[in-house]
């Protein structure tokens, strides 16, 4: 067994550290070392987006990032989306629009949508679909997910104004 590496990162705003082996992905470490199982694994080859996290503000598949690469970075996961007892508007809209059925893809979609709205606060339906094409959903046909994201964009944009 290879020697473990000590990694320090800021996860959801908190200074965190962990030990990991060189071959371990960020998703594996989040889930197995840090007990943060909100990030899901659907394929481990970067094709489904269930493991979407933000790495230094950039949307990535956690399964395609080696945990050692995260040293010194800022990571945002689904666990960091709500603020205290307050759900993020995207989370709230997903619930109102029934944008989830089994819910396994939901954390990935929420993180990806958060990244979208930070990048483009007023996307068109087409832009939302394009951005979210890296996230697979097999239950919903995407309709209510897109509706929820567009509605959240309105709400969040409205607040800013």
């Amino acid at each position, binding site marked *: *067994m290879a020697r473990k590496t000590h990694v320090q990162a800021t996860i959801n705003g908190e200074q965190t550290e962990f030990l990991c082996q060189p*071959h371990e992905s960020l998703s594996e470490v989040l*889930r*197995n070392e840090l*007990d*943060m*199982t*909100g*990030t*899901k*694994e*659907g*394929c*481990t*080859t970067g*094709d*489904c987006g*269930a493991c979407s996290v933000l790495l230094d503000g950039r949307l990535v598949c956690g399964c395609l990032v080696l945990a050692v690469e995260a040293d010194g970075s800022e990571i945002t*996961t*689904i*666990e960091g*989306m*709500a603020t205290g007892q307050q*759900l993020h508007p995207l*989370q709230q809209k*997903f*619930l*109102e*629009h*029934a944008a*989830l*059925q*089994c*819910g*396994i*893809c*939901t*954390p990935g979609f*929420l993180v990806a949508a958060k990244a979208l709205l930070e990048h483009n606060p007023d996307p068109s*339906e087409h832009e*939302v*679909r*394009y951005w*979210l*094409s*890296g*996230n*697979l*959903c*097999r*239950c*919903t*046909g*995407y*309709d*209510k*997910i*897109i*509706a929820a994201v567009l509605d959240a964009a309105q709400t969040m944009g409205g607040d800013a104004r």
Partner: protein
Amino acid sequence: MTDSNGSDRKFKWVGTRPIRHDGVDKVTGRAHYGADFDLPGMLHAHVLRSPHAHARIRRIDASKALALEGVKAVITSDDIPELPLDEASGPTNFSDLSRNVLARDKVLYHGHAVAAVAATSTRIAQEALSLIEVDYEPLPHVLDIRAAMAPGAPILHDHMRTKGLKEAPDEPSNIASKMELTRGDVDQALAEADFVIEREFETATVHQGYIEPHACVAQTNEDGQTTVWASSQGHFMIRAYSARLLRLDISQIKVIPMEIGGGFGGKTTVYLEPLAIVLSRKTGRPVKAVMTREEVFRATGPAPATLINVKFGANRDGKIVAAKCELFYEAGAFPGSPVAAGAMCILAPFDLDHFTIEGYDVVLNKPKTAAYRAPGAPPAAFAAETVIDEIARELEIDPLDLRRNNAVSKGSQAAYGPKFSDIGLIETLDALRKHPHYEAPLGENQGRGCAVGFWFNAGMQSSAEVKLNEDGTAVVVEGCPDIGGSRASLAIMAAEELGIDVYKVRPVVADTEAVGINDNTGGSRVTFATGMAVIEASQDVVRQCCERAANIWDIDAKDVIWQDGCAVATGDGAKKLDEEGKLPSMPIAEIAAGAARTGGPITGKASLNARGAGPAFAVHLVDVEVDRETGKVDIVRYTTVQDAGRAIHPSYVEGQMQGGAAQGIGWALNEEYVYDADGVLANPGFLDYRMPVALDLPMIDTVVVEVPNPRHPYGVRGVGEVPIVPPIPAIANAIHDATGVRMRKLPMSPPNLLAELTRAGRA
């Protein structure tokens, strides 16, 4: 004492859209799915899988693997009981299931499980797999259904003799069974028809595509009690199947349902659970088993590839007079494709006096197929509904009118036998006719197509308890994993009966020791059957509350009714209370608070085998745009119309309609298993097994029609499965409308469509 089907009832919660009770857990990542659970000292299990499509197992030597530091156990079929070949319960053959879970004597497909290892880490377990030496004697394999049925084909099971033939054969065959449905004199009727259309169809193997791979954790105590944490479509099924396969008492196994990340029928059976249980027994430690995505594709049950021939006879007046159908379905390595259901569905929407339907279940060296949303029906609809469209064109009759003229309705004899009670086929056709999509203009290279779908919907067993808390709030305990928002619908039904706020009801999916037996979440049955159990259990609570109120008031129980969450005195009882100057109304909270004094806790329960599941019809309309240079088909507009009986939570009914449509679109346009000549799957991942992404689909319009099912207290019909049935033929018909080309093979992917367009000179 509710109104039958609730037609004249004013609902307070049914038909509303409350936020689902498990929603916050799911949007925060807090909800635990199968792979999200760990225990101290846990080992990791991995499975060794066959590199051959067909081979005899001569010897397995696990000594080197066992010698590896960190490996705690290796199991093979020697470690599980050998079941007699005919051990079956209904459609489930347990000997076959056992041999699929772990191969015995022979491997029958590439990826077939041969051994399993438990080790202290995933890495070590995977390394151990490479150290297990298996001596195989490769055998000729067969991957094509026509070849599998031909004389001289490599035989998978020497003991297999085709069932259902007039004379029982004594030669082994790969045709497991034949079934037949007949009515009238089809040859005569075809001969007399104005014209006859005969067509052949071919569809490819597809997977349910659930995003969550199979996962479980098993732990066995020193006293032999096993606990399994698993995501599945039925924890009672996991318990029953594991007990049967391992010859354990059912009471020795407890299964705790984790949240499930999609199933669509693919998780109504066992793969890893018996292995994890045996490994936990052998090692004395908890064992976690999780499939990789590749394993899910290579070794779990997909939906079968099919060959379907149909011959329809019709008259110029628009009446379809006869039909002959032959369905050949690939069962994979063991018998049990859904060919019978396909055969029963293929003519279900049509009122016919003359038909013959034959269905053949054929084994070959591919993974054992499993259920996939309305199993058997989508390929059958592809065949029938495409030919119906051809007939409509030939007769120059509007396709919806043609279907309407031949539609089954109440009292029609279904093609599969019984007479239909109230059904909504005509209502859905009429609703689509009125929809603006039907008359909307089409652009260049665009075409429009429609198709009808049918599914029986299941009843089966459900148990529920409704427990009244001391303050009049309630807990609903049921046992069907929540795959799509059923907790919300069940809470709605309880709230409706109890007369309390839906947020004062907590729905719980309980483990196998905490609630009565529940059959699987599947078959579009939960809102119907578990809903029925929840309603009955709630009514039991209401009855008890009325009795308690009557006792407190010292009046006759027959004078107490339930209204808006209160016991209300009527008749002589009300008079007496009036004389005493007492309020004739007692809210549930007050009754609950006094329960200890008036007889003890108030708990309602119901366990039932639900009868009277209402069949569902749906009709879909799709506009496509075809790129003639590449063969790419874009879905431009999509409308689904479906009879839901009664939509308990409309958002989740719509969700089923949209999700089923999306799966049908993927099945139609792109999904297929690609095998090489050695029987190795070439596309075992989401990159090359390409399912629809957000950019592939438009918003999907949903129109919910309600023709209440007379046999459910609220009129509920199952909604989950029928939406996957119409998309394939609707899209095929739309492609024809756009290009003049008829696709009869799936998928209608760009290279396949381009080839057809080129052949027809329309590229």
